[in-house]
């Protein structure tokens, strides 16, 4: 047992750091780069140019051939530099489905733009009213000559407003016995006539998710991935495929660092004692650091098992549960640090549901704290609620 990084791993870390200093320099760090379509794509393309956009892919399709430990180091350094986390839709979701189950023609057509960012994918899984019961989907795709005609709707579609294409689960055989049967995996151009996108505004005013409606949308049958009615297999593959950084450990460490800086920033407190002189706040930080350390080493142990071929499996539920619990705790500490200045709504959101925002008050860091705390509630809901993750542990690991 040896928990030190090897010389080779240490050299790799230096390589990553050097890349980040150039591609994501200091002036972009510290939440100074707003998340927009262009800013995100700029970063995506820099990683792509360096050949690092899809570390976990097989090398023949554009992967890096890194060990899980290298990926861990890469993720950690990127988080320490405040770089945008890579969105899962292209790299962890549709890409692996296409290179695993797609036709050669599909691989050739879709993989390069998926890697380069020329296609921005979004995910068409959830449907209104279905919640975590994904397989109960009702969006229909009916074969009509060389096309499918798609009718229905998808929801919680993250960043659909930016997307070029959507990968969808659709029902192609409504008469199949079990609800998991008769589902197909379809790639759909978002510019197809009959598609409309309705923004869903979340607490604090963010527009991150959408509902996507399909009304007689014509989709070439060439866009079917794999076999008709076998979509559930690919969907399950996708759900269990990429677990790297599922716990968000690196982002949480980085957030704690920022929180400690804020809590010690004398300018914010003047003659009053700073938050770092408040024993209760210090205790909360220390507890979180200790819990985060336990989580980090649990993830490292899981990565090591993966590296030695053991696979991750249902243990990933542990990482998801604990990771999201800690992210939520940290977002609450930020809110507490903002104090009264957590209350004002002063974000420029540019959509009609947002209440009027007229003035800028309080310290910069405080502006987003409440909205972020609200937004982080999603982490224990999306991707299978934490209740469902506990069901999985009980069933799959403990055999209950």
């Amino acid at each position, binding site marked *: 047992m040896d928990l030190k990084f090897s010389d080779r791993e240490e050299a790799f870390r230096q390589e990553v750091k050097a890349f980040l200093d150039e591609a994501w320099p200091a002036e972009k760090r510290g939440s100074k780069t707003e998340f927009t379509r262009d800013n995100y794509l700029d970063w995506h393309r820099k990683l792509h140019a360096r050949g690092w956009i899809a570390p976990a892919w097989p090398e023949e399709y554009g992967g890096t051939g890194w060990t899980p430990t290298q990926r861990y180091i890469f993720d950690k350094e990127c988080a320490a530099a405040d770089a945008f986390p890579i969105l899962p839709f292209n790299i962890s979701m549709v890409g692996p489905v296409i290179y695993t189950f797609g036709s050669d023609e599909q691989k050739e057509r879709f993989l390069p733009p998926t890697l380069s960012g020329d296609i921005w994918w979004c995910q068409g899984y*959830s449907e209104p*009213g*279905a*919640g*975590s*019961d994904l397989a*109960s989907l009702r969006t229909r795709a009916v074969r009509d000559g060389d096309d499918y005609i798609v009718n229905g709707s998808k929801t*919680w579609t993250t960043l659909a407003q930016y997307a070029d294409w959507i990968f969808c689960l659709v029902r192609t055989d409504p008469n199949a016995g079990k609800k998991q049967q008769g589902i197909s995996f379809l790639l759909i151009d978002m510019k197809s006539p009959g598609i409309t996108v309705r923004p*869903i*505004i*979340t*607490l*604090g*005013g963010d527009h991150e998710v959408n509902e996507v409606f399909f009304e007689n949308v014509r989709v070439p049958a060439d866009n079917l991935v794999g076999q008709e009615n076998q979509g559930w297999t690919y969907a399950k593959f996708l759900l269990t495929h990429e677990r790297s950084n599922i716990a968000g450990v690196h982002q949480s460490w980085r957030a704690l660092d920022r929180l400690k800086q804020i809590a010690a920033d004398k300018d*914010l*407190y*003047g*003659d*009053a*004692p700073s938050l770092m*002189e*408040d*024993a*209760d*706040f210090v205790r909360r930080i220390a507890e979180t650091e200790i819990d985060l350390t336990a989580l980090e080493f649990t993830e490292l142990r899981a990565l090591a098992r993966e590296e030695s071929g053991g696979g991750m499996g249902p243990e990933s539920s542990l990482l998801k549960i604990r990771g999201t619990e800690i992210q939520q705790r940290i977002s*609450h500490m930020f*809110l*507490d640090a*903002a*104090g*009264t*200045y*957590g*209350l*004002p*709504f002063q974000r420029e959101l540019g959509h*009609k*549901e947002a*209440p*009027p*925002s*007229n*003035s*800028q*008050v*309080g310290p910069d860091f405080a502006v987003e704290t*409440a*909205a972020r*705390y*609200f*937004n982080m*509630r*999603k982490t*224990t*809901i*999306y991707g299978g*609620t*934490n*209740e469902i993750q*506990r069901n999985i542990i009980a069933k799959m690991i403990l055999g209950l």
Partner: protein
Amino acid sequence: MNFDLTDEQEMIRESLSRFLRDRYDFEARGKIIRSEAGWNPEVWGQLAELGLMAVPFAEAHGGLDGGPTDIMVVMEELGRALVVEPYLPTVVLAGSILQAVGGTVAEELIPQIAGGELVMGLAYAEPRSRYDLFHVETTAEKTGDAYALAGHKSVVLAAPLAGRLIVSARTDGGTRDRDGIGLFLVDPQADGVTVKDYRTIDGFAAGDVILDKAPATLIGTQGEGLALLEMAVDRGIIACAAEMTGLAKRMTELTVDYTRQREQFGVPLSKQQVLQHTMADMFMAGEEMKSMAVRATALADADPEERAKAAAMAKVFIGKTGKFVGEAAVQLHGGMGITEEMAIGHYFMHATMLDTLFGNRDYHQRRYEMLTGLRKDAA
């Protein structure tokens, strides 16, 4: 001991509850919080007609001679309906001070409040005061009988709507001295007053108030404003305890309803034992919150130390349990819980902000420890 409400109190509860059901549903509220004004003066007038603004004041000032229990009844109902109209700053915060000070200022302003004609705000916080009421950097300079205020007051509820503000400012002493603080009446329309207005994230009209030689009238005794301020803020906390109870009970109802309707894997969510236990815990939190609100209300008129202890206790408790109920309610609503499209998220946001308002759980926990002598140090 007697926990019963009087017939008059039951009447207030019923008429207010009926009015809000009819006129202040989720959609109506949504229009108000997205409007430029951020409140509905017509609703305000109708609430005044119901007698709401007159509740705690003396008959001589056009009031109904009510007490803390009446405020509790009102606040719980306002909480249930998530009302953003400025009742707390006007009637509870400013009203408590005017009533305590009495004299001509009370004679002039209370009838206007009671009649629904005047909205007020209490400007006590500052950018670096955090939750310490005695941390006052704003200065009051006396020239003749008049005062001129200079400073920056943070997050003043109702500031953009108010006809008058009560502002804490220092005539004497260092930034964090308990002595030397006065309370002043300021007209926000006057020269030297700038209101940087905004909406709070949970939908209330508020603003920062910048004072630059702003003309002001002293109310109460010079240098002894802190006791009045503490009284008003404790009254505010106690009112919030009742409001949080209303929020929590409504969140529990909404969650019970939602989980009964919503099926997953062919079974209503409400049949999952884990969710049942969470809702049982939400119910218990609501009941205990109510108990704390009742207790603090009964001590709202007690001597300052007893009142302060009761308020601090209640604030710790509603902060903790309000967070629990709000988070649980959102979690059980799943994705729908975090959209602006369902009421539950708005309850959750307001419950969260009620923890921050007047000082969060950690702050009042510390305050309780100091007041009870459990903790001796000043750190």
